[in-house]
């Protein structure tokens, strides 16, 4: 039973991080129907920025919580800036292009960003020191949940609440929902669609950066290639939950995280990455629009 709970907590932790990245995918998809393959790279750049800033601050003699907060803030700002720039360069000129063209542009951007970090930094794995504080009150449950896991799950939960409020109750959120529903109509009623798209990229990238800092602290090492698999997994999670749906992305990510965790725990760790995809195929066969996706009626 303890083993089960341990795996469950592990799955939730993993799922929380997938959720942070999946949100960026699902929001962008909801608005411009693009699979943003460069999103995984934004997450990787977030992790790298945090590592660099944290190391510099540590060498300047700072320590503890201030390093964590400063490094996270800088990482979030930079990831958001990268997301914004990538959209302006690679996707905005292609708004009116055939559907597959932005996808190829995204793949090109992803190759570019990977090699940019590879050349400017290093191809080797860098050790990432754990910045997250040790929570004393969790000591009695140490066998079950570590403070890193707790912080990851709690942070994700808080961010979800903030994001929901942002989308449900603010003017910007309303504009985003309107654009997702019908871009032309939104333009007609005076929504600045270009700004809404930029905002979506900025928010999605910022969330990915938070995920980057958290997972880098959890796993303890990063390199230029970490964005790729994380990106594919997160996208799988977004599709699993029903792409375009924000609660769907979170649910999909948690289900995916738990499946991987139980799969590796009870079956075999060799096939860790395969479980995600098997689950995806099974769920989509049963429910082709994802867990929380709307079934769109086809009109003739």
């Amino acid at each position, binding site marked *: 039973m303890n083993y089960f709970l341990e795996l469950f907590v592990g799955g939730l932790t993993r799922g929380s991080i997938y959720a942070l990245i999946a949100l960026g995918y699902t929001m962008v998809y909801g608005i411009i129907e693009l699979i943003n393959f460069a999103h995984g790279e934004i997450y990787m750049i977030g992790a790298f920025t945090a590592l660099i800033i944290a*190391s510099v601050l540590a060498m300047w003699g700072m320590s503890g919580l201030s390093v964590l907060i400063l490094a996270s803030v800088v990482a979030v700002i930079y990831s958001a800036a990268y997301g914004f720039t990538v959209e302006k360069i690679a996707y905005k000129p292609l708004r009116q292009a055939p559907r597959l063209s932005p996808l190829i542009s995204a793949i090109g951007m992803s*190759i570019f960003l990977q090699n940019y970090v590879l050349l400017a930094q290093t191809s080797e794995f860098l050790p990432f020191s754990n910045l997250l504080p040790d929570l004393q009150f969790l000591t009695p449950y140490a066998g079950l949940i570590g403070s890193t896991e707790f912080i990851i799950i709690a942070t994700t939960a808080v961010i979800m609440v903030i994001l929901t409020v942002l989308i449900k109750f603010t003017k910007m959120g309303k504009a985003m929902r309107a654009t997702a529903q019908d871009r032309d109509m939104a333009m007609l009623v005076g929504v600045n669609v270009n700004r809404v798209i930029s905002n979506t990229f900025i928010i999605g990238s910022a969330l990915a950066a938070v995920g980057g800092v958290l997972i880098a602290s959890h796993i303890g090492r990063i390199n230029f290639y970490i964005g790729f698999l994380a990106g594919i997994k997160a996208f799988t999670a977004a599709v699993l939950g029903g792409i375009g749906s924000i609660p769907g992305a979170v649910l999909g990510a948690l289900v995916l995280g738990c499946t991987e965790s139980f799969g590796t725990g009870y079956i075999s760790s060799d096939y860790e990455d395969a479980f995600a995809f098997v689950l995806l195929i099974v769920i989509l066969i049963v429910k082709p629009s994802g867990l929380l996706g709307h079934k769109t009626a086809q009109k003739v």
Partner: protein
Amino acid sequence: MNNTKYIEGVTQSVVVSLWFMFLTFPIMVIRVDTIEKIIEWRWTNMIYVGLGSFVLSFAWRYLSGKGVSERMKSADNGRERMPLLQRIASEKRTSVPAIAIVAIVAALFPFISSTYQTNIMTTALMYVVLGLGLNIVVGQAGLLNLGYVAFYAAGAYTYALLYHHFGVGFWLALPLGALAATILGILLALPVLRLQGDYLAIVTLGFGEITRIVLENWNEFSFGPSGISGIPRPGLFGMELGMHDAQVYLYFLMIGLCIITIFVVNRLQDSRIGRALLALREDEIACQAMGIDKTRVKLTAFALGSTWAGLVGVIFAAKTTFVNPASFTFLESAMILSIVVLGGTGSIIGIIIGALVLILLPEYLRIFSDYRMLLFGIIMVIMMIFRPQGIVTGVRKTYEFHAEENKRDF
């Protein structure tokens, strides 16, 4: 007037270059050595980025301004004019000499270039066939397939395993590899028939990844990450060929396969199946209303597409004499898809050019050594921005309607 415009342009470029200096600051300027505890500040990089983006922003504005005005012009003309290559191909007077020149160059190529270059050209030709195969699924049927590499792997592993266990030769393995890929294609298509658009894309992606992971981990079956080596190259009527001769032989084999593929794909476009595929892409419901069996057409598309991947897979195994799962990653699928889209979805000439460009480009970019893949990524983005419809636009069949001629008395 002109002066203010000039100043405006400079200010804009200064803003752009400042933005990029800010953007690249942590990654380009700082390098930390966490073990030795040294921070390296590389301020010169920042100057390069600033100057580079300043110059490039001018070029960007000039080119994108030109692109817009050109598009406006072509829109004014009403009908898009046929691209040059398409015109050459469609007129007999020009197409015959063009084909003759290409044929002569292709026939002489291995004798005037080194083994290394022949080798690369063979690879490029393999991608031509892969691109044309994927085009049946993506371009004609409109089913986005991101796991095409799985069928390629199926062909390669069929030959490798059959040789390893039973000593089956190349020519017997060729149809068997194609068959294995076709069966795999149908197996994938069956469960995903209900899915549409990007759901289909991600499932095929997952399928490709599962195939690779299984090949990597199922040691008893596929010998894991180390793969299978010592696969023989094809012999010519039982003769063993030397390294160089075998490469030339494979080159001509690929030329032959390319010609067959082009012929089949070309015929397919106007066939009953080809038109059913087009109809399916345009509108599923209307297509069903016309009495086309949706399920069967989709299965046919997947099966036809994967057959080519299987054939090329067998040749790949014979060419490298070695297969392992690392050759069949998602990047490979993305590359083949890029060939189709970059060349021009639906256009045979476009895909041939796309394959040659995308496969030969990284080879000729080798002079830039480390910066090779960086430039490759940039070129992909830039080509898409300036030619979003691909190098050669696929010409869609149109029927012209002349009001005068069709006027009839009732």
